[in-house]
């Protein structure tokens, strides 16, 4: 006798559809057992109860299925977990970053004509400043007043008022919200993957972790990463003054940790290698980890033993029976932003003189006591906690690149992401070199000098950029880092001024407005220059009645780039656009480069 196959409708997953299917089922298979399907009947109570249970089960099934994928999950913690799986690092503590001006008096030199450079100090990273409300900001990079971009902004006269005693120097510096604090953690016996909770809140960054023997532990994204980039002080005074304060060096870190966050709690997670393994090779010998070595003369199992791999220090050394001094940066306020002009108090100037033994103690004290700060612009940051949708988008973006430069755009992003202490690139462009047999890529970069003018990037910066890009570069990509070529040009206009305005006034207004608008932003490398933009700017000036003619001129010579182009040959149709080669960046260098006649 064949088994009776009862068709079950699995498509019903909500209360109404399950109830409908149940009633149909009862009517079909138990027509004599239950006939009363009135909503207030006992039979209806039974079907409603079963439908209720079915609806609940369906809900939790749907919930589990939805929460299993990043795309469909809704719970905040689940979204973060999925995003973490995709390599996204989530932090609930927000920071604001901005620029402040640091002022200090520097004694006049023997001739009294300039500041004594011997007293120009360095304010070291970690110096802290605050608003009157107590919102603390910490200096991100060392600020060296010896560098070229220190400005002289005033002076202090001697007590009798006859001579200049001190020159007031100003330098811009970057600060980040929060202050550095320390906590000491007692670490006991060895533990695999030691996880230590920091007894503090509002932690935005772990600055350093040092054990009682002085060994430093380094934060890595994943415990498998065994190299970090460390800045080595740049001793080359030539490139140092060009903004490259540090040389980037890859540094193997057998002692390392990752930071895990769970809500407001922050944990340090260590690997489980031992001290002795540091003395051995840094990288595990592949011949020892690939296969089990057995007595028999054949191989039956070709799988490698993962635990063998793990017995190396690859996950880093775990601290044992020591005290860890953890320095962390914590926000002091919930709102970490500061309005313009509100950062005015120096808490700790963290000042360092080059050769203090050769300097007068009273002058050094005077400098230290009279350091002042002021932020011309507000210090803003993203203080809102990202929504689940934002986290999803960030995770997708993170997963797409996986911290690697895959597309040309990735190389540009990676270049701009290099920390400023290694030198900053103002503009970068990258192109595939079609003429090269190896199909390598040419990256063109340009930097900016202290006056905001384009200048060729220093060799130290290029060296740092090479090291930086090597960490994200695909293994078969080859990138040549080249200097972009600056094309300095001038403008000669022929305009008609308003009747009631003097020609001089019209000329000055036209020149000032042209210069202001054309130097608002630095163009991209290879970006064409829109000649029509000059017409638009001039026509918008109230003193200008009409624009008769515009001429673009080459500017080459002592203070300009040696590069020149045949302007007429590079002008597009109808002379609207000046096309420059892809390695060239145009720059209107000085206001005096704009000349013209006013009718």
């Amino acid at each position: 006798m064949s088994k009776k196959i009862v068709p079950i409708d699995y498509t019903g997953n909500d209360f109404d559809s399950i109830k409908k299917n149940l009633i149909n089922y009862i009517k079909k298979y138990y027509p004599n057992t239950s006939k009363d399907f009135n909503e207030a009947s006992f039979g209806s109570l039974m079907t409603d109860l079963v439908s209720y249970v079915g609806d609940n089960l369906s809900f939790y099934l749907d919930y589990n299925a939805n929460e299993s994928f990043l795309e469909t999950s809704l719970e905040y913690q689940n979204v973060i977990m999925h995003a973490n799986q995709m390599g996204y690092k989530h932090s609930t503590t927000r920071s604001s970053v901005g620029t402040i001006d640091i002022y200090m008096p520097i004694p006049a030199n023997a001739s009294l004509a300039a500041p004594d450079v011997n007293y120009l100090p360095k304010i070291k990273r970690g110096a802290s400043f605050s608003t009157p409300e107590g919102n603390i900001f910490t200096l991100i990079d060392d600020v060296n007043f010896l560098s070229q971009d220190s400005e002289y902004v005033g002076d202090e006269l001697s007590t009798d008022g006859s001579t200049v005693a001190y020159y007031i120097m100003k330098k811009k510096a970057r600060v980040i919200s929060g202050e550095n604090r320390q906590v000491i953690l007692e670490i006991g016996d060895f533990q695999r993957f030691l996880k230590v909770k920091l007894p503090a809140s509002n932690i935005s960054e772990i600055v350093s972790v040092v054990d009682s023997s002085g060994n430093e532990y380094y934060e890595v994204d994943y415990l498998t990463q065994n190299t970090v980039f460390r800045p080595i002080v740049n001793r080359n005074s030539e490139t140092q003054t060009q903004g490259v304060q540090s040389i980037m060096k890859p540094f193997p870190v057998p002692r390392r940790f990752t930071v895990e966050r769970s809500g407001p709690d922050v944990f340090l997670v260590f690997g489980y290698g031992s001290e002795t393994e540091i003395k051995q090779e840094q990288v595990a010998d592949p011949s020892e980890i690939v296969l089990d070595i057995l007595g028999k003369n054949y191989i039956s199992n070709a799988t490698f033993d993962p635990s063998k791999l793990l017995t190396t220090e690859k996950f880093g050394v775990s601290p044992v029976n020591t005290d860890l001094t953890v320095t962390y940066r914590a926000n002091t306020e919930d709102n970490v932003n500061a309005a313009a002009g509100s950062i005015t108090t120096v808490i700790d100037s963290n000042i360092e003189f080059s050769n203090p033994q050769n300097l007068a103690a009273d002058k050094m004290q005077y400098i230290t006591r009279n350091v002042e700060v002021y932020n011309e612009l507000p210090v803003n940051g993203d203080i809102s906690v990202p929504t689940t949708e934002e986290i999803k988008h960030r995770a997708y973006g993170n997963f797409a690149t996986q911290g690697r430069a895959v597309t040309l755009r990735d190389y540009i992003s990676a270049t701009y992401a290099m920390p400023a202490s290694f030198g900053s690139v103002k503009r970068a462009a990258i192109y595939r070199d079609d003429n090269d047999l190896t199909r390598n890529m040419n990256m063109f970069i340009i930097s900016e000098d202290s006056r905001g003018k384009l200048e060729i990037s220093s060799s130290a910066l290029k060296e740092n950029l090479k090291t930086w890009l090597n960490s994200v570069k695909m293994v078969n990509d080859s990138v040549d880092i080249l200097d972009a070529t600056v094309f300095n040009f001038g403008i000669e206009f022929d305009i008609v001024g308003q009747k009631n305005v003097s020609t001089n006034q019209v000329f000055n207004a036209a020149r000032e407005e042209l210069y202001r608008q054309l130097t608002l932003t630095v163009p991209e490398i290879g970006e064409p220059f829109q000649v029509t933009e000059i017409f638009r700017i001039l026509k918008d000036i109230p003193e200008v009645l009409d624009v008769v003619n515009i001429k673009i001129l080459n500017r080459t010579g002592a203070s300009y780039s040696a590069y020149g182009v045949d302007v007429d040959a590079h002008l597009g149709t109808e002379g609207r656009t000046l096309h420059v080669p892809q390695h060239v960046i145009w720059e209107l260098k000085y206001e005096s480069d704009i000349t013209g006649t006013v009718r």
Partner: protein
Amino acid sequence: MFQPKFPLEYSNIDGPYRGIKDIKETIKQNVLFLLSTSPGEWPGNPDLGVGVRRFLFENYGSLELNSLHTRIKDQFSRYLPFLKVTSEFVEKDSEGYSLVDQNQLKIIVKYNIKPLNVEEYVEIGV
């Protein structure tokens, strides 16, 4: 069988649940269910039920207590539309003593099964 008889009991004929085989009896059980069920109690149907127990502490003769009749009419027209219903409070017990004095409230619900043209009633204590 129309539906299991409540409370559930074993039957030698029907098996685990004694069944109701008379249409008037099944309607009566439905009427009792509808009167006794408090709103929100029924799974998946929070509107169902007169919920006579909710009126237990209302003052005798108050507007709130009298709204019970309206509630019964509304519920019957919605869930048992084939019945024509009237309801009234029972004032005295079988021995003629006032139920109010005994702190009791009883209601008698009379209904006419329109397709059968049969008059039935149920008496329910609140």
